[in-house]
């Protein structure tokens, strides 16, 4: 299978934690090179859905196929970059040591890891701080280090769980320009958010609530579907359309 046009295919996913149904029959298809936004309030199931795409969740029913491989599949994880919601970093290491570690973990050899680390730090605009210990950085900077760790191995699929929380508007705009560039180069990006101006930048959006996919489409399609002008209003209308 050469360069499949479908990057992620999820069918009928359910997952319960005790009595809470975190995912309740979610299906989703994301094409290669797409930027797909997952929208929804806190606790809607966005994080569970993203975690199930990197095999961190054993689903109860349903299938997850990523880059042509049915999960669980350890090898395909080398081609996925995952940025968790809270910046999971080694606080006692420097910025560069953190990023280089995750490069090595994803199988890059030393010269390649050094090159990719420099590139990734350039990408998140942290090259001048590369020798700073992470514990001394602000929250926004840690978020950027975390992003660098997620994309240092140049994954074909990038999963970003609320990547721009605590990032100032200027840098957020800059990061989104770069996401767009990456997607133009063929990287598939799935990003969860509840910031509406970010959602506008996604190619397609999925509205998640109560573990279900309530609506899917471009920003314009969703607004038309809800019969409103602003995406935020569409979000509210569509959220209430079904319990």
């Amino acid at each position, binding site marked *: 299978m050469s360069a499949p046009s479908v990057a992620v295919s999820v069918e009928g996913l359910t997952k319960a934690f005790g009595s809470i149904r975190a995912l309740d029959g979610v299906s989703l298809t994301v094409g290669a090179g797409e930027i797909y936004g997952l929208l929804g309030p806190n606790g809607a199931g966005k994080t569970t859905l993203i975690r199930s795409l990197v095999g*961190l*969740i*054993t689903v109860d029913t349903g299938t997850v196929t990523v880059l042509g491989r049915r999960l669980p599949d350890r090898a395909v994880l080398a081609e996925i970059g995952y940025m968790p919601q809270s910046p999971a970093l*080694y606080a006692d290491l420097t910025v560069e040591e953190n990023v280089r570690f995750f490069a090595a973990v994803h199988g890059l050899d030393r010269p390649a890891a050094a090159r990719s680390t420099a590139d990734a730090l350039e990408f998140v605009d942290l090259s001048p701080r590369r020798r700073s210990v992470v514990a001394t950085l602000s929250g926004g900077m840690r978020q950027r280090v975390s992003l660098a760790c997620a994309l240092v191995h140049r994954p074909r699929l990038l999963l970003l769980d609320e990547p721009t929380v605590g990032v100032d508007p200027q840098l957020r705009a800059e990061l989104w320009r770069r996401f767009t560039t990456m997607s133009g180069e063929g990287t598939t990006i799935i990003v969860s958010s509840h910031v509406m101006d970010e959602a506008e930048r996604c190619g397609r959006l999925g509205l998640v609530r109560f573990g279900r996919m309530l609506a899917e489409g471009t920003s314009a399609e969703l607004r038309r579907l809800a019969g409103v002008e602003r995406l935020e209003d569409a979000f509210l209308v569509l959220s209430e359309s079904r319990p």
Partner: protein
Amino acid sequence: MSGRRAGAISLRILQQFRHDRRTLMLLFGAPIILLGLFYFLTGGGSSLPAVDVVNLDRGPLGAVLAADLGQSTEINVARTTEARAASDLSADAVAAYVVLPADLSARAQSGDVIAPTVHLEGTQPALTQPVLLALDQSVTRASRNLVAAEGVHVPVLEPSLDYLHGGPGLDTLDYFGGAFIGLVVFLLVFVVTIIAFLRERSQGTLERLMASPLRRADIVVGYIGGFMVVATVQAVEVVVFTLYALHVHNQGNVALIVLLTLLMTLVAVNLGIFLSMFATTEFQAVQFIPLAIVPQVLLSGIVFPIATEPSWLQVVSRLLPLTYGVDGLRDVMLKGNGLTSGPLLLDVAVVVAFAVALIAAATATLRRSAS
């Protein structure tokens, strides 16, 4: 000072305790367990050290003395031959054997000193004292009866002591040095690993590693590799300091001491990874010290000989890795045993088995998928 504000803090602390059941169990459960252990170790229901008695006396005193030793509340006596007793001692089946010489009665009757020979194993000072005490009590009782009957003086007891290992030249430090090398290294490496691995879990980096192509075994082996580098330096430092700065007695191979110490470290690293799964905060991890470490220290034979524990507690002792590490280090340092010695090989094999089992357990606790 404001009573209300201080009261708010007190109340909050009580609320936190209420939400932290495990800490409450520790505070109220651990003292009972530890004090209970102490009770059993210091005499309550404990076993008596086994001692062989060999009676070669041609007169009456030997038989009376041997019979009286059989009633002793300090030691558990069996009567046997000298050859059998010697092999029991070298096999560690008895703590000592006492030989009552052929001229025992004759010398007692002539008012002379009596000199039974006490053959001691020698590496467990705590086992020497009950043997001498029992002998002293029995000589006094037995000869008092004979004094009344035959009108002789109470003889002076001057047992001659013979040590299989060690001997009177060893001091307390020599006995405990080897055991403490194992204990210190085991304890420190365990604490450092459990905290390090717990941070890996709590800061979310473990989840990141699980989302990468790493195998679970890669993570465990990686941890072992990193910690063993530091642990090797530590083991060499501790052994060199113990032997050459503190001049603790050693008659074994230094490399073997380092090897045993490293094996203990390997067990400690994996025990740390494994137990980190059962803690969610560093606070809870530290709580494993009284729960997982202190009982091991009490039960591993470092201070209280395993032979004198109640028999059910001996079973527990035999299930603890530190027991075998300590025994192995004593075998090397006090007995000078090498890898050709059966008991030492057994200790090494058991420690290795613990290490392997804990590596498997540590790997198994690293689930790629969250439940």
